[in-house]
């Protein structure tokens, strides 16, 4: 059963069609990510779900209740949807505890205290309960914002670019932490981000969004490995788009023959990830190293193929090829590619 269902939602600001006929289901306890470049309408989508904007058409159903739809618009405070803002939006006049208890005002006192305490423990901040928000570190503030959103036990938690205002060095750790907290709380969550790595590593499923429309929905491994369009392939990671001729389960390209995810025939384009290629030093090779980007655990090579095109290849950093070296590039074993437009 779906906790949240969006059906054909559109929203136009003036002449800008921010969200176009978006439909999406989020299952109970699922962590869904909406991934898209800035300006693609993902934040508007979030605000439509939260109730800060009203859809022009379409409906939003939360926990079997229609909260936005034809003739119906439930105000944000009646939707049971928690939100974690990009810069947290903590109430500066309230302590950590006061922030977390804010959404529990209507509960009886004991229940409120117990829930506040439990939620603070969940995020590991019980020892900072009395502190004002400005005395906390960025990561702690984020955990307070998360605790504040989780405390009223909402049907859905929305997270708007939750890691974008943190240092890059903190992000990976906090990502894991936030994921664990959300799993612990058994929360249903929708996260909006423009960071592919974040979406891929965190979400159960992700929806790729472009120009107000959802391009693809699926598990991270599918969205990455079998992108639906050339654009999605390029947005979610590096990619080589090759043209070739398909013969059933294989496709013949200028770099060699690749396996196809789905059978096809005739002239096609396929998306080949840089790690789906391998290369070896060869004085008579079919390509030359033009640039090398050393990333520690792996290396991204930019090659010029003898046919003239540029090819990206990613390899473990075990053996390095110098710029200018002649190499032989070919499909990696078991590389399954997918068709794109």
């Amino acid at each position, binding site marked *: 059963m779906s906790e949240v269902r969006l059906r054909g939602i559109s929203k136009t600001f003036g002449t800008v069609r921010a969200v176009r006929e978006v439909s999406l289901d989020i299952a109970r306890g699922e962590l869904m990510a909406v991934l898209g470049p800035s300006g693609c309408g993902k934040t508007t989508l979030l605000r439509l779900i*939260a109730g*800060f904007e009203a859809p022009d058409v379409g409906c939003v159903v939360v926990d079997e209740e229609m909260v936005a739809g034809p003739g119906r*618009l439930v*105000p944000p405070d009646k939707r049971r949807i928690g*939100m974690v803002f990009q810069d947290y939006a*903590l*109430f500066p006049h309230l302590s950590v505890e006061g922030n977390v208890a804010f959404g529990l005002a209507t509960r009886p006192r004991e229940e409120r205290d117990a829930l506040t305490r439990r939620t603070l423990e969940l995020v590991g901040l019980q020892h900072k309960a009395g502190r004002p928000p*400005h005395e906390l570190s960025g990561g702690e503030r984020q955990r307070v914002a998360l605790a504040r959103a989780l405390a009223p036990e909402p049907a859905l938690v929305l997270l708007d670019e939750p890691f974008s205002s943190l240092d890059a060095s903190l992000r990976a750790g906090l990502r894991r932490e936030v994921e664990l907290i959300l799993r612990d709380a058994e929360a249903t969550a929708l996260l909006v981000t423009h960071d592919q790595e974040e979406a891929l590593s965190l979400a159960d499923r992700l929806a790729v969004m472009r120009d107000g429309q959802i391009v693809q929905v699926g598990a991270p491994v599918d969205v990455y490995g079998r992108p639906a369009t050339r654009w999605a392939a390029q947005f979610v990671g590096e990619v080589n788009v090759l043209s070739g001729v398909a013969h059933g389960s294989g496709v013949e390209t200028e770099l060699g023959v690749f396996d196809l995810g789905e059978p096809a025939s005739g002239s096609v384009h396929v998306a080949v990830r840089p790690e789906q290629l391998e290369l070896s030093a060869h004085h008579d090779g079919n390509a030359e190293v033009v640039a090398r980007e050393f990333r520690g655990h792996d290396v991204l090579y930019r090659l010029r193929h003898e046919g003239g095109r540029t090819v990206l290849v990613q390899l473990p950093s075990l053996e390095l090829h110098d710029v200018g070296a002649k190499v032989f590039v070919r499909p990696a074993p078991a590389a399954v590619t997918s068709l794109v437009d």
Partner: protein
Amino acid sequence: MGLRRRSPGAGLDGFAVATVLCALLVAGPLVGLPLSFVAAPGGLSEFSGFVPEAVVATALLVVGVGTGTVLLGTALAMLVSFCEFAGRGWIEWALVLPLAMPGYVFTLFALGLDVPGIRSTGGAICVFTLVLYPYVYLLARAAFLAQSRTLLEAARGLGMSRSRAIARVGIPLARPAILGGVALALMETLADFGTVNLLGVRTFTDAIYRVWFNAFDRDAAMQLAMLLVSVTLTLLVLERLARGRARHAQLAARGDAVRPVRLRGPAAALAVLGPLALVGLVVLAPLAQLAVWSVQSVSDGLLAPEFATAARNSFLLAAMSALLVPAGALLLAYGVRASGSRVAGVAARTATIGYGLPGSVVAVAVIVPLGWLERRIDGFAGTGLLLTGTVIALFYAYIVRFLALAWGAVETSLLRVPRQLDEAARGLGADRLDVLARVHVPLMRTGLATAALLVFVEVMKELPATLLLRPLGGDTLAIAVWQATTESLFRTAALPALLIVLVGLLPVALMIRLSGRRGAELEAGGSAVAWAEDLEVARA
């Protein structure tokens, strides 16, 4: 498409309606003023002598006070901005103190000492110049401090002497700010009733009073008020224009502040003694004299028996207004924000047009709709003079008159509350009233307190509207001062006057304390709040 578009905040919801109603309540009476010319076209014929008399007196005052405040205010601003001397720090702020001295209290002091020639237009010009120059001083000083040193140094490099550089570059750059300050001073002059009445200068406010009380002719009073409004509005427009340009000029000139020149010897002594003498004359001497007279009046039993009542009335009116007016301003400002409606925004701006309107005008404007409503209610329930004969009319006038003052302080601090906090609170189950009570009001404490303080002090000082609208037995301290002074009972007037000045020193003291040495302009409540909140931020 149009029917389906139901964005939360696009339509007219409860908050928008409340805002619009509030705005109509405040601005509505003022719209009625021009209508009086239609309703009673010959209203002024009986008082045909009043208008030319008032026009001449007003013109003389405007020219005289304008010249006086420009010269005095600019000279003092130049002194503290371009010169360095021992004691400059506190001279700089002592020069603001005359703001706390209402014109009619200084007039009481001057009349009590029997200053020769004071009962004349010239005398009134002197009084206004002495108590109103701080407007020019503050704005000009802020403009000078914002000027870039490089501009003046460029002028020096082109072969100008220091004083020529100031005259040719410094003053022209500050001209918009100086004009803005003059406009404020002149608006106060036009709004004044106490000083001109006591000194026998027959301006519009005085004419309104005489038509109202001696002839009971409301139509004529409204038409006189309308004439005064048009003069005031002209000034208001000029001030807005000047201020817009001032902002522009200040933005254009960035860089290090002007380096002041060090004064030594007699010049340094004069730089301290001159301002000291001025503040001594305008603030310290009157305070001392009032204190002496107060003691004498108490010991001689000259104190009017109504004093206690007047003090209580003043305090209650001021305290109630200090609650009501900021609350109204908060409702307006939050209504605009919470509804997100453009109609509400326009309504709120309309509601602040009472800003700078003379108290007499406001009093005359509110009495007509109240009287009409009162007759309807009376015919229905037989309640008599339910509105015009009670403090309700007075509160109504105070709201119309001072809403803009509170609005400035309240809106500034509301704008500093990020909108995301509203949304965060809404997402946590708070409805819009909850958001106001649990998020905005706590965060706006300083702004609301400033608004309350400003309104409190203004109501304490207010004379013309109170005089025209007070119910029987509703004399205030301001009225007691005016009444006793008209009867030359200067000692009786001293104690209430002393109280008014002491209360009036509060916001000036607050402003000085909050601003420290920062260059800033006095812009009603707005900047005081800004200072207060910057201070809070700095502390955090």
